[in-house]
């Protein structure tokens, strides 16, 4: 597939690749050490030494934003894995069995859908305190019915096809058919949805960290940086700009990947 054929996928993959490299790089190197504080150099505007300026504790904002990529990607990835791990089998089961089981899975999904992710997160934080783990749990729980419904929908389409009937006649049981035939053919749709949920996870992590319920120090998070920057908006507006741009780029990257994948797997969308 050439870049011309699917520009969204190529652009998205580029942005996502960039972010992943930054997150990986930050585990071994950042321009400055953010653990030691230099209060005397606080709230400097952008300069050659500090292209994004320094924050209220004198830390280099480039380094801090680099570290933030880790939390953002880590939380979103874990939440997607949680959603995939539980949602996909549930969706396959609902599609394969139908009837009462299908009803139960779908009604429970409705109940979970009734809890907006931000509110669920606030409840979970209230039970067990703020922290990245709880953001993963909250967003992951929200992801489960999303993947269950998408998988069920894609699987139902497959079940109607002739080759499944052939597999049945060949004596394969439901479980084997679900995993050997249905899942590989529904995978495209599921992966495209995963990219969308990935970007939702990034926004949710940023929003929850922004209201102080997400990633906790000493770990950095773009949302938390925005929270701290907001009180300093009059003194140091540059602190607001860069973490927000980072979130924007990350969300844009995953949305484009999702879009590109949808287009790639959906023949109707091909230009």
């Amino acid at each position, binding site marked *: 597939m050439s870049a011309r054929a699917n520009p969204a996928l190529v652009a998205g993959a580029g942005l996502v690749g960039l972010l992943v490299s930054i997150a990986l790089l930050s585990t071994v190197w950042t321009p400055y050490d953010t*653990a*030691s*504080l230099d*209060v005397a150099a*606080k*709230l400097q505007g952008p300069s050659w030494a500090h292209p994004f300026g320094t924050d*209220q*504790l*004198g830390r280099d904002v480039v380094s801090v934003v680099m570290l933030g990529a880790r939390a953002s990607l880590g939380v979103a990835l874990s939440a997607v894995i949680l959603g995939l791990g539980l949602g996909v089998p549930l969706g396959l089961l609902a599609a394969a069995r139908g009837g009462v089981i299908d*009803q139960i899975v779908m*009604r429970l999904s*409705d*109940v979970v*859908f*009734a*809890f*907006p992710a*931000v*509110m669920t997160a*606030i*409840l979970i*934080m*209230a*039970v*067990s*305190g*703020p922290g990245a783990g709880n953001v993963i749990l909250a967003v992951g729980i929200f992801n489960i019915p999303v993947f269950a419904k998408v998988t069920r929908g894609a699987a139902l389409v497959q079940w109607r096809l002739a080759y499944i009937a052939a597999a049945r006649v060949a004596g394969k049981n439901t479980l084997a058919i679900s995993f050997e035939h249905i899942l590989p053919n529904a995978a495209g749709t599921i992966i495209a949805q995963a990219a969308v949920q990935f*970007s939702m996870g990034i*926004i949710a992590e*940023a*929003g929850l960290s*922004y*209201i*102080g319920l997400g990633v*906790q*120090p*000493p770990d950095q998070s773009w949302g938390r940086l*925005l929270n701290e*920057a*907001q*009180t*300093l*908006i*009059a*003194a140091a*507006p540059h602190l*607001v700009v860069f*973490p*927000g741009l980072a*979130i*924007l*780029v990350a*969300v*844009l990257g995953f*949305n*484009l990947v999702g*879009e590109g994948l949808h287009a790639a797997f959906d023949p109707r969308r091909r230009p």
Partner: protein
Amino acid sequence: MALWCKHVLLLLALVLLCAAPAMAKDTITVGLQLEPPILDPSRSADSAIGEVVYANVFEALTRAGRDGSVRPWLAASWDVSRDGLVYVFRLRPHVRFHNGHTLSAADVKFTLDRALAPNSINPQKPWLQAVAGVDVIDPLAVRIRLKAPDSGLLFALSLPAFVIFEPSSAAAARQHPVGTGPYRLDVWKRGEAIHLVRTRDYWGREARLPHAVFRFIPDSTAAYAAVKSGDVDVFPDFPAPESIAQIRLDPRLKVTIGTTEGQVILAINNKKPPFDNILVRRAIAHAIDRNAVINGAFYGLGTPIGSHYAPQDEGYVDLTGLYPHDIAKAKALLAQAGYANGFTATLKLPPPMYARRSGEIVAAQLAAIGIKLEIQNVEWAQWLSQVFQNHAYDLTVINHIEPMDFDIYGRDGYYFGYDSPRFKALLADWRSATDPDRRVAALQAIQRKIAEDSVNGFLFELPRLVVSNARIGGFQANAAVPSNEVSGTFFLDATAGGASPAVVGSHSAPNAWRYLPLAALAVFLAFAVRTVGIGYLAGRSASLIATLLIAGSAVFFIISLLPGDPASFMAGLNAAPETLAALHRQLGLDQPLLARYGHWLTRVLRGDFGVSYTYQVPVAQLIADRIVVSLPLALYAVILAAVLAIPLGLFTAAWRGRKRGAVLSALTQVGIAIPDFWLAILFVLLFSMVLRWFSAGGFAGWDGGFWPAVHSLTLPALALAIPQAAILGRVLSRSLADVIGADFIRTARAKGLSPAATLWRHAFPNAIIPVITVLGLQFSFLLTGAIIIENVFALPGLGRLLSQAVEQRDLIVVQGVVVLLVAVVVFVSFVVDVAYAIADPRLRGRRQ
């Protein structure tokens, strides 16, 4: 029709009133960060209560000065017996309560007996531990008998928790305070402001301004904007030390650095190894560089302290030189204690900015001597349960705001874990010292002992940053207890007139449109019954109710699992255990879980959400007060989103395949990816700070007219709407693209209709259905998504109510709000389903 006209006229009148030029300044507007939950200072430790009512509405027998000295107030004079065991107070004559009742000794006895009762929930009860009894001698004389001499009694009687009540009004004082002060409560607009009005027959000097308004502005950016714009005349506890330097440059504003009774300390768990070793604690003291902490955490605006004692208080000794900042010495002490290589420990930090920033700096300083701290940010609820109650901590940073509170170092089971018989003896010396010289000597010995044992790391005295209009005078910034006395305040150049401002107290306008949604729903349902049939509707309704019931029960049980005790919030840091038990009984928290569930369910079905623990008003009322912010905000955002999305979608579709179209789609992609709260912050920066078109936060309130309220919702609604408009625009352009391929479009083009006309007249009406569906779903997203935006703009909506209630462990409010939001989400998806079935007959057969 006549009624309808009346409402319109009323609305017009409201708008005109708001547009009228400001009248002579006869109102002082005070900005406060925190709203008091109730207005009775004898029932909650929340210092925000005293900030509003103390000295303004309620008064105590005595009044403490800036230095902790005590002068007569409602008590004109007193005599102390030679053994210090009997105090006789003579009351001022002709003191009137706001309800007309005249102050007498019986009221004093009532107030103190109520505070001393076994079921008392008074947060400062330990201050009265020496009191044996209170007797009425005559209507203007009252006797207090003590079990042991107590030199702190006169000071204690000045505290907000011991203001004098009148028996018939005391029970309702949480909402309807009746005191003896120069102002009485006029109206309390929850989430916005408390209005006080001058009383006629005050016993002392009448207040200079007839009106005082306390406005609540929780966000520091909004506080900055409020003082800059003159929305508030004085902000006595300005929350943004980083902005002080800029405010000082503004000649219209005045900055006064006052004092508080708050010591910011690095509290140490003295019971837990290695902190039980005094050498380790002293090493920590040497490792701390107070000036760097003050510079980093409070922009240089704090006074270093060396012990747990406020520099302005009686008998202060400067002990900051006892452990000078000396890393070599600290390392040596640590090595002597057997920790040459240092150790690791945790540092738990509560939410306030001073704590979080001081904590990060202290952690970096201790790292320099090899003590590696793992920082854990905790919410207030967790701080109270983990640190304060269960002592599950190593180190924490906290501000001890209570005045003269060094007696906590002598309290058994206090969270410092400090147990020193020698210190307790010093406390007893101080209590029994009725002679001033002996008392000062005792106070100094107490300060020294705390510092020598290096019980905690002492960082700095929290300053009171008073930012005010340069034109006001007579505002009392320094007070021994957290309070804002406004009766002496005046405007320098104004002739404070007796003209009372036009109080627009009409609630009828909002009331009238409260029925609008109900009417719309009735019409919708009637239409649905006609088109999709009663059977389909009944089936969908049954599943709606099942979902609601399961979700509601889930909410109840999740919330019942929440750790953190609501009672400990209300009781505060100085509460006695029996106070907590009394509070538990009062809140019904001593009942078993299932009994509470059954009780809750039956009440919710009747529309009763219970009574808020902290605000002590029905939850339904709190929600009603907040929903008039959140619902219009969500509606406004949906309308804006639709208005922006329609041209976006149309142009994207019309320009498909062209360069302009590609640019528009790229912009749409960026729009979808913008986090709305970041956009909100950028809007504040641009439209509030630079252009000053909109205020940076807060809500004008519907009482002040329609347009000011809409104006204050515009920035948040726009921030919410833009990403949603991008999503909606894309849905529309996709849907248009699908429709454009259809035969009837080709027919229309073949008829000779222009592409633009075809798009608008034929494609658009057919493509709009999926857009309406997405719009419906976005509405519930916006209603809950506003939780974060409301925090950016400090809007008193449901989202803020929810986050505040979680922080304060007001579980019954959390339950109410969550159940309501869940119900809205479920209900909106029901409406969308039904609307879909109406629009597309094919869907009606596919029941579940």
